């Protein structure tokens, strides 16, 4: 049973596979699914992920900024909880 793909990821991958041929620029907000998406949609997507979303305590207006995340090398910090 190990490593089954969670339903929501499987659903997304199945639907993306059905899209017309082409290369799609995909943004994964949350980035838990990088391996699944890259393994299953190698030729179809150009993957980009935001692997850390700021909690925004200091500035509620600021939600995420990919450049800053890359620069500061933030790591994935949210545990899967289901």
């Amino acid at each position, binding site marked *: 049973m190990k490593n089954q793909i969670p339903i929501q990821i499987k659903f*997304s991958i199945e639907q993306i596979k059905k899209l017309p041929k082409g290369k799609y620029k995909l943004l994964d907000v949350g980035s838990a699914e990088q391996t699944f998406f890259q393994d299953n949609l190698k030729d179809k997507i150009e993957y980009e992920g935001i692997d850390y979303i700021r909690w925004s305590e200091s500035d509620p207006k600021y939600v995420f900024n990919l450049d800053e995340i890359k620069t500061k090398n933030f790591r994935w910090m949210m545990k899967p*909880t289901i």
Partner: protein
Amino acid sequence: MDDETYDIIVCLDTLEHTLYPKKIMEEIMRVAKKDAILFLSMPNEFNLYTRLKNFFGMKTPAQETFQTIDKHLHIHSPRVKDILDFFGGFGNFWKIKYGWHSRSVLTDTGVLGFIVYPVDLIFKMLSGIYPNLFCRTVAVMGNKKLRRDLG
């Protein structure tokens, strides 16, 4: 990040962990192309498993009182209706997937995974019939709402 950059945006089981999901959705809308396809999901926190656990005075792994922020657990606990209403405010969704999966089926190699597996299959079937109770995850596919859709 520039406006209207991405063809597909996925945000799966993430928003419930964040303090301001609406702001994240607004940012997603900004960076999504006009015809971008969105895949979004959130867990239904009022499913049978959660209800039973709570009924018997227990908590799920996502409910750790006073440690929600420290452990990056679920800040928001939506029902199916809340999830659909929330997503509906940002996109036109034409596919909705109600699903059930147990954590042990996804991660356990041992006996527990095999015991839970058939139960999961039954719940998966029931999740389409009565999602409020039997659906653990609500996943949607659609387009972002354009200004003209919003009126």
